[in-house]
C-alpha cells in the first residue's frame, strides 16, 4: 500500500489537492438534485412501504427447511379465517413468513395449529406475533422526539466545542442531507420501513456527526485564531484540512462499512428479512452518504458561512492581493495555493 500512503502524503503536504471547497456550487447543485429526488421519488412510487409494525396485524414464521411451498400456508390461514388474504413470503433459506390482518387470540392459536399441520412441524417451532396498529406510531413518535432532541443537543454541544455555531450549523445541514437521502433511498427502492430500519436510521445521526466532527477538528486546527495562513484564503485552508483528512475519511468509512456489510450479507442471505438486515441496510446507506456529506456538504457549507465575515473577507482580500502581486513578479518566486475557481 505504498501508493496509498504516498497518496496520503501528497494530500497532506498539498502536493496533490482536490479542490473540493472551491467547487461548492457543484456540490450544492448535486445535493439539491439528490434531495429533490429523495423527496419526490417516494411519492412518485406511491409512498413508503411500511412494515407490519405500522399497520398492525399478525405474523407467523415457520422454519420449514427444504421444499418450501407457499400454498399450504394460504390454505391454512383461510381455513381459520375464510375472508382474508394472507401475505406469504419466503424468508432466508429455510423459513416462510405469513402476515395477516389482526387476529384474535383464538384465531392465532388456530392458525398456528393449522400451519403446524400443513408443514408438519411442531407447533412450538412456529413464531407468532401480534402487533397493535398503534405500536408503529408509538415508535415513530418516540423516534421523531429523539431525533429533535438529539439535533438540539448536538448543535449546542458542537457549538460549545468548536466555539462557533457556524460549524454546528454546517454539520447539522449535512446531517439532514443524510437523513433525507437515506429515507429517499428507502422510499424509492420500496424497502420496508420497520422499527429496526428506524434504529439504523437513528444511528446515522450519531455516525454522520461523528464523521463530521473528526474533519471539523482538523479544519479548526487549520483555521484557528491567529493561525490563518498568510498564503491561503480561508476556503483553501478548509480545503487543505479536508484533503489532509481524506485518507482518514476513506479508511474510516471502509472500516465502518465492513462490519455493516457483513451484517447486511448475513441478514439478507442467511436470516432473511428481519432486524439485522433492516438495521444494516439503513446504516450502509447512511455511512456512505454520511462520509460523502462531511466532505462535500459540511466543509464547503462551513467555508461559505465563514467567508462572509468581515474579518475573513479582509484576510482573503489580502491573500489574493499578495498572490496577484507575486504572480506579476514571476510565477516561480513563491509557492501559491490553488485558488477556488
Amino acid at each position, binding site marked *: 500500500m505504498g501508493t496509498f*500512503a*504516498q497518496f*496520503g*502524503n501528497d494530500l*497532506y503536504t*498539498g502536493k496533490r*489537492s482536490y*479542490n473540493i471547497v472551491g467547487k461548492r456550487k457543484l456540490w450544492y447543485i448535486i445535493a439539491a438534485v439528490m434531495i429533490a429526488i429523495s423527496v419526490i421519488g417516494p411519492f412518485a412510487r406511491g409512498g413508503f412501504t411500511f412494515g407490519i409494525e405500522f399497520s398492525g396485524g399478525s405474523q407467523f*414464521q415457520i*422454519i420449514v427447511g427444504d421444499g418450501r411451498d407457499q400454498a399450504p400456508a394460504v390454505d391454512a390461514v383461510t381455513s381459520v379465517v375464510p375472508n382474508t388474504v394472507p401475505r406469504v413470503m419466503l424468508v432466508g433459506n429455510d423459513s416462510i413468513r405469513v402476515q395477516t390482518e389482526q387476529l384474535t*387470540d383464538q384465531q392465532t*392459536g388456530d392458525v398456528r395449529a393449522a400451519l403446524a399441520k400443513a408443514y408438519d412441524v411442531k407447533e*412450538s*417451532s412456529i*413464531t407468532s*406475533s*401480534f402487533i*397493535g396498529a*398503534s405500536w408503529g406510531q*408509538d415508535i415513530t413518535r*418516540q423516534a421523531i*422526539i429523539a431525533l429533535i*432532541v438529539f439535533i438540539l443537543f*448536538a448543535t449546542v*454541544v*458542537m457549538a460549545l466545542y468548536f466555539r462557533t455555531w457556524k460549524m454546528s450549523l454546517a454539520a447539522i445541514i449535512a446531517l439532514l442531507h443524510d437523513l433525507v437521502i437515506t429515507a429517499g433511498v428507502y422510499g424509492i427502492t420500496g424497502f420496508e420501513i420497520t422499527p*429496526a430500519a428506524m*434504529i439504523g436510521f*437513528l*444511528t446515522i445521526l*450519531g*455516525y454522520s*456527526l*461523528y*464523521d463530521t*466532527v473528526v474533519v471539523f*477538528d*482538523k479544519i479548526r*486546527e*487549520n483555521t484557528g485564531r491567529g*493561525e490563518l*495562513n498568510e498564503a491561503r484564503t480561508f476556503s483553501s485552508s478548509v480545503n487543505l*484540512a479536508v484533503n*489532509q483528512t481524506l485518507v*482518514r475519511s476513506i479508511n474510516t468509512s471502509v*472500516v*465502518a462499512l*465492513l*462490519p455493516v456489510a*457483513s*451484517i447486511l450479507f*448475513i*441478514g439478507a442471505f442467511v*436470516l432473511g428479512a428481519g*432486524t*439485522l438486515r433492516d438495521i444494516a441496510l439503513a*446504516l450502509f446507506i447512511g455511512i456512505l452518504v454520511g462520509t460523502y456529506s462531511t466532505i462535500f456538504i459540511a466543509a464547503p457549507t462551513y467555508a461559505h458561512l465563514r467567508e462572509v465575515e468581515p474579518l475573513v473577507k479582509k484576510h482573503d482580500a489580502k491573500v489574493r492581493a499578495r498572490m496577484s502581486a507575486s504572480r506579476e513578479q514571476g510565477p516561480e518566486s513563491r*509557492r*501559491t*495555493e490553488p485558488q477556488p475557481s
Partner: protein
Amino acid sequence: MAKPAPVKKAWRSLVWLLVIIVALVGMNAFGVFTNKGSWTPQLALDLEGGTQILLAPQLESGQTVSGEQLQQAVAIIRQRVNASGVSEAEITTQGNQNIVVSIPGEPDQATLDRIQASSQLQFRPVLSASSATTQSATDGTGEDSTTPTPTSEAAAPTATPTAPGDPAWVTEELTNKFNSFDCSSKEALESGAAASKEPLITCDPYGMEKYILGPVEINGGVITDATAQPEVSSSGVSTGGWAVQIVMNGEGAKQFAEVSKRLYGAQEPLNRFAFVLDGKVISAPTMQGQITDGRPSITGGFTQEGAKSLADQLKFGALPIGFEVQSQDNVSATLGSNQLQSGLLAGLIGLILVVLYSLLQYRLLGLVTVASLSIAAVITYLLITLMSWQEGYRLSLAGVAGLIVAIGITADSFIVYFERIRDELRDGRGIESAVSSGWKRALRTILASDGVNFLAAAVLFILAVGNVRGFAFTLGLTTIVDVVVVALFTHPVLVLLSRTKFYSEGHRFSGLDPRQLGAVYRGRAQFKAPVSTDGKVNRSSREAAKRQTIAERKAADLAASGDSSASASSDSRKES
C-alpha cells in the same frame, strides 16, 4: 538507567487497564460463585425464544398514565405474573408509557388474559376475616389497626342481602369455600377479575390474612389524594408513628360518611372495610369514628415507608387502568438460536474484514488495532455480562447489531490516532515525539467525536422505545469502552513500541516509516517535512507553532536558495 517519564506513564496506564479487567473478571467470578451471575450474558427473547407482550396501560378516561401510575401498573402486572407461577418472567417499562412482559416459553391463554385484565381500587366491606391458614401468621407488615384474628361469622341468614355490608351475603356455601380457601391457589389468582356486585373471597398480597368481602361499596375514583404523614393523637401530639391521610371528593365523602356511620361501633369484623386493589386487600382498617368530611386517615404501626407505599397505592390505584396489548411476540427457540448464531457469524466476519483491512493499511501497526479491538471486546463482554447480572440487562438481536457496528467506530479511533502520528512524522518529527504530540491532538478529536456518538446513544436510550434501546445501550457502552481502550491500551503500547528498534528506525513494515510518509531525511535522525517551505499552519498548540516557525523560516530560506530536496516547492500548481 531510569526509565523516561512517558515510558513510566505508559506502563502505569497498562497496569490500570489490567486492574480494570481483573476487577471486572473478579466481580463476575463473585457473581458466578454466589450463583447469581453467570459467565455469559442473558439473552433477550428474540435470541432465546419466548413470549414478549407489550402492554400500554390506559386510564379508562382515555388519558395516558403518569409516571407514578405506570409504576403502580407495573407493580400490579408483576404481582399478577408472579402469582401465575411463571418463573423468570421479566417486567420492565419502556419509554414512559409501556410495560413489557417477557415470559420464557409460551404462556397459556389464562395467564395472558389475567395479565391483560384492567384494575381499579375498590372499597368493599369486610364480612369475615381470618388469618390465612396455609401461611405462618407472622405479621410482618402491621398495616392494620386490628390484629388479624379468626372470627366467627355472623349468623348465616337465609334472607337475600340488600346492602353491600349486609352479613346476609355470607351464605353457607361461601363460608365453606372461605374455610378451604388457599391464598396461593389458582382460584386466588382470579380474584382480580371478580364482579363488583358479588361478594369476594380474597387475601392480602402477602397471603397473611383472608377475607370475605361484600360487593363494591365505593369506587377508588373518589380518592383525590393520599399522603403519608406523621401520626398525631387527638390531642395534637405526635405519636412518632405514621399515618396515611386520604382525601376524597364530595361524592366520596358522602358515601364514606354513610359507610362509616354503619361500621363505627359495629361488631368485629363488620366494623372493618377493605381497600382492594386488583383483587387483593392492600389494607383493611377498623372504623374508629364517624368520618363525614371525606378525610379518613389510616393508622396503626406504620413505618414511614409502609405509609408511603400504601398512600401511593391508594393514590395511583384510584383510577381504573386498562391494559391494551400493543404487540405480542412469540419467538420459537429455534429461530432465537438461529438469529444468535447468524448475529455472531456476522460479527466474526466483520471483525476479520476490519483486521485484514487495518493490516493492509497500517502494516504491523494493524496488529495494535487487532490487539486493541480484542481488549475492547473482552471489556465489553465482561461489562455486558455484569450488567445482565446486576441490572437485568438482556442482550437482544438489535444489541448484537449495535456491538457489530461498534467495531467500525472503535477501529476508527485507532485510525484517527495513527493518521495523526503519520501527520506528525510528515512534519518531520522523530517517532517518539510524533507519538506524543499526535496523541494530544488525536485524543481531542476522539473525545469530541465519541462524545457526539455517546450523546446520540444516550438520547436514543432515554427517548426511544423497543429494540432501539437495546441497540443504543450497546452503542453507548462500546463508545465508553473505546475511549478507555484507546487511552489505556493503544496509546501506551504505541509509546512503548516507538522506542523499539523496529519502529524508531521506521522499518518498512512498521506502518510508520518516515521515508514512506514523505518526510525528507536530513541526516542524524532529523527529518524535514517538505511542506514546511509552504509555511504550514496546522499546528494545534501555539507552542509548537512558535517553535516551528524558526525551522520553517530556515527551511524557507533553504528552499529559496534552491535546495532541491525541498521537493514540494514547485509542483503545487498542477492541481487546480
